[in-house]
């Protein structure tokens, strides 16, 4: 029942993102249309993964993905980025925590399936902490490039405050996820988490076979 509720919220938010997109087309406002379409397509990714690679992301993680993209598109289309104080930083924290969590999923999956790789548990937390921040910095570089090339004002001009606050919230979010990960890993063995993702079945799918082939080609750095 609880899982179903999360699922319905996810669908509602997905539908809202789509509705915003349609509204933007009707109003002829194209500034945020591309972001809106891209966000909707990304929210479809978990479904596509499930169908074609048989990888099942946990429901809460799918909701997390949809919420952070919803905050982004709604913020852009409804001008909340400019109107609501700290909206920019809230979305940053939401997406940074999501990216950090995805980093966690990638790290323990690679650890479990790639033969030449072993990540001790403390490293997984360190990786989450560093991955969230690194992606935050790359995001700022992307914003900067957009400002320079397209003449937008994503970073609000010459004052460094916006960039620094963004990074600060990225840092806080990554830190929280890193702590959560280290607590989580003490209770649940990573094997179980990865098994729930369905990677065991995913190995048999076409996509899984391609990925695994790539890993097996790398010679084992031992002997």
């Amino acid at each position, binding site marked *: 029942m609880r899982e179903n509720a999360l699922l319905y919220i996810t669908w509602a938010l997905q539908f809202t993102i789509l509705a915003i997109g349609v509204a933007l087309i009707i109003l002829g406002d194209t500034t945020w249309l591309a972001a809106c379409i891209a966000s909707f397509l990304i929210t479809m990714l978990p479904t596509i993964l499930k169908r074609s690679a048989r990888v099942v992301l946990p429901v809460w993680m799918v909701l997390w993905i949809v919420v952070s993209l919803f905050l982004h598109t709604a913020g852009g289309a409804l001008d909340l980025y400019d109107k609501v104080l700290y909206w920019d930083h809230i979305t940053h924290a939401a997406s940074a925590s999501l990216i950090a969590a995805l980093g966690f999923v990638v790290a323990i999956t690679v650890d*479990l399936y790639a033969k030449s790789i072993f990540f001790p548990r403390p490293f997984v937390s360190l990786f989450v902490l560093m991955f969230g*921040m690194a992606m935050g910095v790359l995001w700022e570089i992307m914003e900067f490039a957009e400002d320079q090339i397209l003449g937008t004002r994503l970073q609000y001009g010459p004052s*460094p405050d916006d960039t620094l606050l963004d990074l600060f919230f990225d*840092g806080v979010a990554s830190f929280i996820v890193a702590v959560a990960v280290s607590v989580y890993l003490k209770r649940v063995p990573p094997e179980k988490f990865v098994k729930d993702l369905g990677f065991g079945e995913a190995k048999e799918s076409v996509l899984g076979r391609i990925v695994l082939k790539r890993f097996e080609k790398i010679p084992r750095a*031992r002997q």
Partner: protein
Amino acid sequence: MLMFENKTRREMLDASLSWGLGLVLLLCGYVVLVEWQAVWVILGFVVFFLYLLPIVRFKDPFRAPPWEIVLLITIPAVIHVLSGTKSFGQLGGAWADVAAIADSFGLATLGFLIVAELEMYTAFRTNRPFAAVFVVLFTMAVAGWAFVVEFIAALLYGQEPEFIFGTNDKIMGFFVYTFIIGILMGVIYAVYVGLMSVQHRMSYGFEKPDKSDQKVRP
């Protein structure tokens, strides 16, 4: 001394070079400490801590980081210290550009050092493509965290961030430099480990004997 007796000439040379460069690093740290350049003091402290950590942890001076890596860390530190001196500070031109890049370079070497130490001294194992990616990621992350710490410090001391950091363009320029240098460092790391002989890699711990019992596979 007993511990020097069963060392080969090559091991003695490697270790001495590492210790010598460690001293240079300490000297650079002393200079920035006396001049009180807070950011560089923290950076120097972290780097020197990472240098001493394996020696203290294994109670063996021969487990110091390889001299090639220490050299890589020493270069930006020396450039930074020299650019503060009278004779080098006046040079300007190309030298000023080199000194500016040295700042990004300094942070990038820290990412490099963290990944190298993880591989050498912990159970962490990875393959070379992933190691290179980790170097880039850690370099970006170290740069980001450095700015967050500086930002918090500025707020605590009640100073305007703009006064400390300059304009946004300046910060972003730094990040772009760091990104480029980070990628360069990742490539250097992969090439460095790749060029080492298997024997050397084993003795440094870049390659470990098989421990597949550590991993439970589904």
